[in-house]
């Protein structure tokens, strides 16, 4: 019947090793991370058994997504956006394009353009688009897209962009990232425009799918 004496021991846990591990993990993530690009439209790539990786750098990504109307139904047309992984290479094509289409941008607007990861606005709307606030830009971008129609029988705006990007980096690789549900018509148009300018070798971004699961 003796009183049980609970010993009050000091439960101090040494957090130093824990914080060591944490710092290690943190450094690992910081060094390996490439930030997810903010894409204007959600693209669900199709699966494939191919195991080739996307090239490290110098990639021009062409984003193709099926266009949707306000109710969310696909219209059968597609939207095209572009992004270059090296944003330093954006300035020169922008200057060339604005010169060609007679668009004047002030310092602030061209800076905004270079800070955006993805672009895809028709040239005649570019100036107005870049003057918008960040939130308004995000809202409008997913209703736009780079026009694929040829201008007076010549190159389309899309082809001009690819051409200018190619001039900056002659080793440019082209990657096509299209949504699985995109009608082939749209993809065909993009491909045939690329073919027209002798850009016949490109990558198609897919998801890894194990052989056998259908």
């Amino acid at each position, binding site marked *: 019947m003796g009183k049980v004496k609970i010993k009050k021991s000091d439960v101090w846990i040494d957090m130093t090793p824990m914080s060591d591990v944490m710092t290690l993990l943190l450094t690992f993530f910081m060094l390996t*991370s490439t930030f997810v690009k903010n894409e204007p439209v959600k693209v669900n790539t199709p699966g494939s058994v191919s195991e080739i990786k996307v090239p490290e750098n110098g990639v021009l990504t062409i984003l193709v997504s099926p266009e949707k109307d306000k109710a969310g139904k696909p219209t059968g047309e597609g939207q095209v956006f572009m992004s270059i992984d090296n944003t330093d290479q954006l300035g020169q094509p922008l200057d060339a394009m604005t010169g060609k289409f007679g668009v004047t941008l002030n310092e602030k607007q061209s800076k905004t353009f270079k800070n955006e990861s993805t672009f895809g606005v028709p040239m005649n709307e570019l100036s107005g688009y870049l003057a918008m606030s960040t939130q308004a830009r995000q809202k409008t971008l997913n209703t736009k897209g780079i026009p694929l129609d040829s201008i007076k029988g010549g190159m389309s705006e899309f082809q001009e962009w690819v051409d200018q990007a190619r001039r900056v980096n002659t080793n440019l690789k082209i990657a096509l990232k299209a949504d699985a549900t995109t*009608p082939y018509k749209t993809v065909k148009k993009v491909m045939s425009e690329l073919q027209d300018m002798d850009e016949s070798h490109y990558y198609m971004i897919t998801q890894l799918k194990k052989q056998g699961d259908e």
Partner: protein
Amino acid sequence: MAKKESKQKKVNVRVDFTPMVDMLMLLITFFMLCTTLSKPQTMELTMPSNDKNTQDNQKNEAKASESITLYVTADNKIFYGEGIPQYSNPAWLKETTWGNDGIRKILRNHSTANGVKPVTRIELAVKELNADKAKNPKMYPDSIYQKKLSKIKGGELKDGKVPTLTIIIKPSDNASYKNMVDALDEMQILSIGTYVIDKINSDDAKLLKLKGIRL
């Protein structure tokens, strides 16, 4: 005097690291959520140039029994026709399904004029090569492996040359991009080296319409 000096108080210099750990955890979660660790996969594709001035001697001709035309159409459907297109004969066009029991089986079982099943033969050879590579990886660095692989894809097997199939893939306007990639995927799975993506021409369209297929 000496006694007083030795009575220095020992201050416990233990620092509590818990807030630090909290903060690190937060940072780690942030980085983990914001990163894409694995790069997406790609397929390499080389399309023929649209240049109309291709010389005739640069064109390859495939034997009729060594070519198959695939029609990828809307609503996930796939049709195929063996040999030279017979545009006036709707029975030439046959329907099949995607996957192992459909199109893959047909390609595997397709035999050429002299009774060889090139796809099956080449697939076996590639499997053998992969098994060899898995056994002693040192013998097969990437350059040699790729060279051997392209040789096999070209039909040069250990026991003589076999003809290779030429596949013409024709996706229609309303076929989804996924189906096109699936078709290319079949080429990859079956190690078919010669295939081309072509447009549907007016004859093809007529034939498909004759069968009542939605393009």
